[in-house]
């Protein structure tokens, strides 16, 4: 059965409605601002908020699944000389944050949980290049900036 509700035009009294509207606006003067003064005050982040991609090179097996699943080719595999028994081909993902959309597909598909995301989001810098090599991905944001 289809339930239909006919919506009528708003009931109003001329002029009084407008003045009540003005009063509503004026009343908000005494409300606390809802905005947050960002650099000084930081809002509490939600538990599941994720932004920055991290990589644990010890766990990475070089399966290239993350490269395949990445929707906009932000992840490319890169050679890295590192002793890792499980990663015979010695290839590790590098991420271009300029195009990363934080879809978290790489995190979901990684069979060894080597790639994971964290809530770090302040990645702005003057450098014009957002390519993160596997070693960069392992480090924290502070270290990479230096």
């Amino acid at each position, binding site marked *: 059965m*289809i339930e239909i509700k006919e919506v009528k035009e708003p009931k109003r009294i001329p002029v009084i409605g407008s003045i009540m509207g003005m009063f*509503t606006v004026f009343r908000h003067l005494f409300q606390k601002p809802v905005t947050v003064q960002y650099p000084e005050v930081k809002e509490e982040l*939600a538990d599941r908020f994720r932004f920055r991609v991290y990589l644990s090179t010890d766990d990475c097996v070089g399966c290239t699944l993350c490269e395949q699943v990445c929707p906009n080719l932000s992840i490319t595999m890169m050679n890295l000389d590192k002793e890792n028994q499980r990663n015979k081909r010695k290839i590790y993902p590098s991420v271009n944050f300029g195009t990363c959309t934080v879809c978290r597909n790489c995190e979901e598909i990684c069979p060894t949980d080597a790639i994971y995301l964290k809530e770090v989001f302040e990645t702005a810098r003057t450098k014009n290049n957002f390519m993160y090599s596997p070693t960069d991905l392992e480090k924290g944001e502070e270290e990479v900036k230096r």
Partner: protein
Amino acid sequence: MENKGLKEKYIELNMGPQHPSTHGVLRLKLLLDGETVKNVEPVIGYLHRNAEKICELDFYCDALIYFDRMDYVGAMNMEVGYLEAAEKLLNIEPPERVVWIRTVMAELNRLASHLVWAGAFGLDLGMLTPFFYVFEQREKILDLFTEICGSRQETNYMSIGGVYQDFNDKIIYKIKEFTKQFPKKLDEVYNLLAKNDIFISRTKNVGILEPEVALDYGVTGPMLRASGVPYDVRKAEPYLAYDRVNFDIPISKGKDVLARFVVRFEEMRQSVKIINQAIDKIPDGPYFNPKARKSLMLRLRGEGDVYARTESPKGEFGVYLVGDGSVKPYRVHVRSPSFKNLSILPYLSKDVLIADMVAISGSIDLVFGEVDR
């Protein structure tokens, strides 16, 4: 100055793509006779990102992020639309819990989308303040999304056969908190706008759209319902859990801009009703289908073709998928509601004033990610 006197009767005026009134990057070529609009020609394509074609180049699971970015203020509804089609094509049935979770998320996002519309419509009419009141509420919804999905707008929350992460008690409590305070705030904004005499004089009997014309042009969604046609995909062809919740289709006989306004606000109230029912009915169970678990994400193969339609905040959102048995879709086609609704603008704004034209284009609720795809 060389130009001695006006030689032509009509002025041609470009509105947009960089113009404060246009939503996104709409460009309108106006032919003006003084203040009267003689002809409107919408020029689109400034936000064309080739989304359909890119979807065809990637795996089934990857297309979601492009659907997120079609209607970026109602991303959940886009995801639902794609997954309705993809899950039919890939023969993956989402578990019962997922169906209810998706219903809640889609309705929350419908609220967010309509709120953005209400604020932008106020701005179109020159009203600054309601914009901030609705955005405060929208921000609460987006905070909920961050809590649930990990990101605000382009959430990529749903996946084929499931959702990204499960609901927990804290989230359910927060959603209930939100819906408890929301109707009061909604009424406040509604009264602020709809009880204003100038607002009524700007919207009443402006842009009258007869139901026959609306059907001819393929207009759907609140635009169509404001013309008095009770057509809603959620009722006509129920998907998700919409056949198991109790809600009404708001229609109006007004056919004008004001009718679209009241219909959208009533729809928000109905959405709150749906959320309140659905949040209590979420059953226990897995939050993804093991057939589409994450390690199999790249191995989903589909064959045949399928069309699924859903009710996005803007109207009927259809997705046509063709699979050729490989891991990538052969063809993705989108029937986007904003694009179809935009086609009515030249018809509605014949011989109206510029101010009315702006009000009409505001009432259509255009999101350009979806028009241009």
